[in-house]
């Protein structure tokens, strides 16, 4: 992989970074407002997730330059974490079972 020399260094207008930076500030303020305004229930959780994924997406795509990489690379890096969804599902089902038992026997 000694092809660094013929790779065009990534040149993007600095204004792009300022825009994304501003957007991240706005999104962070929104997620803070979710708590400040004491929103509860489904609304709270969905807003937290929406703002979280938007922020994460912006950081990965622009700040970490993922949108300018080739698809082979993007997939190799971004698809493995999907396994975590399986772990979350397994642990959630296990945890709710444990919680049920605690409520029955200690509750």
């Amino acid at each position: 992989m000694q092809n660094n020399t013929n790779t065009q260094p990534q040149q993007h207008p600095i204004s792009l970074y300022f825009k994304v930076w501003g957007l991240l500030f706005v999104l962070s303020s929104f997620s803070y407002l979710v708590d400040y305004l004491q929103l509860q229930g489904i609304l709270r959780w969905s807003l937290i997730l929406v703002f979280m994924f938007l922020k994460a997406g912006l950081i990965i795509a622009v700040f970490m330059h993922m949108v300018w990489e080739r698809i082979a690379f993007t997939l190799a890096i971004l698809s493995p974490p999907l396994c975590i969804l399986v772990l979350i599902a397994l642990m959630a089902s296990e945890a709710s079972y444990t919680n049920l038992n605690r409520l029955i026997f200690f509750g």
Partner: protein
Amino acid sequence: MDNTSQPTTSGMNGLIEDWVSDKDAFKNVSWGKTMMWIFLLSDTFIFSCFLVGYMSVRMTTDVPWPNTSEVFALTIAGEHIPLILIAIMTFVLITSSGTMAMAVNCGYRRQRKQAAILMLVTAVFGVCFVGMQAFEWTKLIEEGVRPWGNPMGAPQFGAAFFMITGFHGFHVSIGVIYLTVVALKVLRGDYEERGYEIVEITGLYWHFVDLVWVFIFAFFYLW
């Protein structure tokens, strides 16, 4: 070597030959950048395990979880503001990501002085972040939060808090050292010949630290 050629060596030498047979799948991505991304991928799994573990203990406990909005509230100038310290920490880290992105940009424009200064500014923001985290830890420890219990609610709160924020703070501290070292080398002109991809690679690590904080902020502090 093309892919159809027959293997020539067997045994351990053959093993090594096969692995170095120059079949690159990732065009236009240097080894340094690939390896940093793969390291970050493995780090993703570590932080995921912490956050999933936190989810598990929070779901299993039948004791109410402490209200993070109140636990992390501060009284500033007589005004009681919920979660304010964490909000400030979030903004500090995002600002540091912004300065880092601009450092990468300056690096590729071969403005090495600006790149180094922006990296050092990023490191200073990182130090601020760790400082605020130290303040937060001190405050909670004084209030009696321990890894095995606390006065506010479910005992698992302390374990999850110290483990997750501690590991993240450790990453920030390492990042500050890494940034400072690379910034000084950039300033000295060590990369004039090789080019400034190193700034981007360092940036990847720093942005990842910010990325992890996005998830910690959402799941641990806001949920």
